């Protein structure tokens, strides 16, 4: 009887998921309530977790709870620490959830709410969660080996090198593009700049507290830090209202870019306990609070989604970034659906802390579902604002015009009415001089979040505080990605240069630290700078490049997973990882091809460079701007070369892997599986 009831309950959840998905897919004309999005996502995730992840756990991976995990066999109280599955879920989620699932869906909202929402839900269930879960399982069976190590052992040495290079490439591009998101959110905003600047002395103060006053007391230090940051958000208004102080904190894009580059260098070279770690603690607390508040706010306010399901920009001429739904929607939304970067977390810290193999399902598959839910929340927040306002915030001046009047006229002409007075009024309401031309996703998401929060607490009066809280929240944890990523990148560079010069590879030799920090910061700083000076707004070029790099890494992870599963004799179920691999290779290759060779200058790097060269030759560029345009031409050609190298890397890895798969399947080679030998657990069931 109980079983029948359970079955009926799951049928009801599946029916509700189908009904909600059909409603958001078929709805036309009138605005639709955000509750449908929450229902569609939550019920789909429940069904995916209950059925698909259980199938993967039982049939594909055959998880074995009688087998001792690395945290049991190698427990050392440092890296290998058996951890409660709920706590580890929290750790894992905090590690994988970055700005990507917030920014990507916000940018992809230019196609309308439908393509992005469907990709977020389906992509997570059938690709992203599968990748995280399977890689976590593979790493558990190999004592927590990294993706690069597994690629080297299980695919080939060349595969390992490809994986390591892919990680370094994605790291550099990622850091450049997230830094650009911060610059676009902070430029000409004294309030936001002051608030973010204040997080640095606050983090330093906490670093000293945690190191010398109360070592390791993270919770109390974080509570003090969060209180100070909230004060800084409020104090930012006083700074913005003071003409003398506002002038000091009103910075242009290039100045902010150099400030971030200097910050990244300092965070990489300074002791980690002083700046990086305390900032990360603050960021984790604020991230958890803000994401929970956004979900609660959407459930309480249940806003109307004003963006249509599909906009006219499905034709590929979108102002935020150019390119059609296929492949660019799937490149733009990376982290909320599938992110290669997650495979680094799934094969790093988490497998060393897991208590039971069966927990991998909840942590690997479940945490990614939650991240996807964050992406759906971001999509709702972006689509709940008037479409005209969304496009005014996210479109570069070179497309909509430099003044509020020109922007309003262009955007209204597209069929999304907005007036200059609306934009000016909204900017003043959130405490900004202007909200125009803020491509990058952060400001529009902050406006969406502020509107939802202020509908719950404070009304219009607190709109400006909520807006700057949201900007601070986004910028704070983007900075955390920036400094943690720069430091990891520094280690990778030191590992590489250490092969040429031994002292440079020593992690405690200061000249080596400074040189490698400068190299990594210089690399991402260059991408940041080119984004800041790009007349098309930077995001148009760099976000797709980041998406390609991230999906490339996901393809690497899935190729490694497929190889391991083939060696384990799971041919019957190999489609579980093979189909997402084929899909990722298809979108990565198509996007790469279009980004390099498209004849549309807004899409193709080379055609943009050629068109600009032709304009210079025809004398259409003012003499004062010719040198700047030559830099733009060089940058576009560089981006084309980087894209080609990334695509070439995945092709090399694919050829390696397919050759290997053929050898395994034709029995020409006895597969050698590099699993750690079976050791029975000594823990009682339920430990």
């Amino acid at each position, binding site marked *: 009887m109980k079983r029948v009831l359970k079955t009926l309950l799951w049928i009801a959840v599946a029916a509700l998921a189908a009904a909600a998905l059909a409603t958001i897919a078929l709805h036309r004309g009138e605005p639709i309530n955000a509750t449908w999005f929450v229902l569609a996502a939550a019920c789909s995730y429940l069904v995916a977790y209950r059925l698909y992840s259980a199938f993967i756990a039982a049939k594909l991976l055959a998880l074995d709870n009688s087998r001792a995990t690395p945290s049991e066999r190698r427990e050392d109280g440092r890296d290998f620490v058996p951890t409660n599955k709920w706590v580890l879920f929290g*750790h894992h989620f905090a590690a*994988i959830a970055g700005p*990507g699932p917030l920014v990507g869906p916000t940018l992809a909202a230019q196609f309308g709410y439908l393509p992005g929402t469907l990709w977020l839900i389906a992509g997570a269930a059938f690709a992203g969660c599968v990748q995280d879960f399977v890689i976590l399982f593979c790493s558990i069976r190999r004592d927590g080996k990294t993706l690069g190590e597994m690629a080297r052992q299980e695919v080939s040495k060349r595969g390992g090198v490809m994986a390591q290079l892919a990680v370094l490439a994605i790291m550099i591009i990622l850091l450049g593009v997230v830094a650009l998101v911060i610059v676009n959110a902070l430029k000409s905003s004294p309030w936001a700049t002051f608030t973010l600047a204040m997080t640095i002395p606050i983090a330093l103060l906490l670093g000293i507290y*945690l*190191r010398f006053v109360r070592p390791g007391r993270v919770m109390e230090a974080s509570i003090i830090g969060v209180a100070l940051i909230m004060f800084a958000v409020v104090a930012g208004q006083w700074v913005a209202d003071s003409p003398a102080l506002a002038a000091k904190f009103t910075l242009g894009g290039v100045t902010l870019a150099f400030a971030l580059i200097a910050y990244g260098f300092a965070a990489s070279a300074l002791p980690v*306990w002083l700046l990086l770690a305390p900032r990360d603690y603050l960021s984790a607390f604020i991230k958890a609070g803000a994401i929970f508040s956004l979900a609660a706010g959407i459930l309480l306010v249940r806003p109307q989604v004003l963006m249509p399901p599909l906009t006219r920009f499905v034709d590929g001429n979108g102002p935020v970034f150019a390119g059609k739904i296929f492949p660019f929607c799937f490149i733009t939304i990376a982290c909320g659906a599938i992110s290669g*970067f*997650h495979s680094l977390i799934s094969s790093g810290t988490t497998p060393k802390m897991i208590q039971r193999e069966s927990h991998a399902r909840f942590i690997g598959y479940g945490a990614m579902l939650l991240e996807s839910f964050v992406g759906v929340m971001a999509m709702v927040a972006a689509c709940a604002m008037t479409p005209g306002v969304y496009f005014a915030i996210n479109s570069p001046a070179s497309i909509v015009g430099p003044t509020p009047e020109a922007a309003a006229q262009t955007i209204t002409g597209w069929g999304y009415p907005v007036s200059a007075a609306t934009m000016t009024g909204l900017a003043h309401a959130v405490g900004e001089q202007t909200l125009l031309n803020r491509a990058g996703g952060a400001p529009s998401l902050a406006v969406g979040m502020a509107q939802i929060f202020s509908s719950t607490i404070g009304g219009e009066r607190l709109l400006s505080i909520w807006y700057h809280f949201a900007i601070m929240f986004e910028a704070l944890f983007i900075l955390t990605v920036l400094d*943690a990523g720069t430091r990891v990148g520094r280690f990778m560079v030191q590992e590489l240069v250490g092969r040429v010069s031994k002292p440079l590879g020593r992690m405690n030799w200061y000249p080596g630290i400074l040189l490698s920090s400068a190299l990594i910061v210089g690399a991402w700083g260059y991408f940041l700078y080119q984004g800041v000076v790009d007349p098309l707004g930077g995001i148009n070029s760099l976000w797709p490049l980041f998406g390609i790099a991230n999906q490339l890494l996901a393809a690497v992870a899935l190729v490694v997973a497929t190889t391991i599963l083939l060696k384990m004799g799971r041919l019957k179920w190999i489609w579980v990882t093979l189909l997402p691999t084929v899909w990722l290779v298809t979108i990565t290759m198509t996007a790469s091809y279009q980004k390099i060779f498209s004849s549309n200058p807004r899409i193709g790097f080379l055609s943009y460079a050629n068109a600009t060269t032709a304009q210079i030759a025809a004398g259409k560029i003012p003499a004062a701007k010719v040198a700047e345009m030559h830099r733009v031409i060089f940058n576009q050609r560089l981006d084309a070369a980087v894209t080609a190298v990334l695509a070439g890397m995945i092709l090399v890895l694919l050829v390696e892997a397919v050759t290997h798969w053929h050898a395994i399947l034709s029995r020409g080679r006895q597969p050698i599986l590099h699993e750690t030998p079976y050791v029975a657990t000594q823990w009682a069931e339920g430990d």
Partner: protein
Amino acid sequence: MRATAKRLKGRLAELWQGLREWCGDAAYEKYVQCTARRSAEPPLTPAEFYVEQMDRKYSRPNRCC
């Protein structure tokens, strides 16, 4: 009633411990317990452990995009 209160207290204590483990407050306690069971060497001091733990944690990818 008393049993319910006791159960609630137990749940809250579990939640509190989970929060401490999640944020890192309980890391040193776990390390000391593990060292006592597995190693003959004296454990690091809280400050030494904190610095060592931070250096290790931030030398590999631990924050995603």
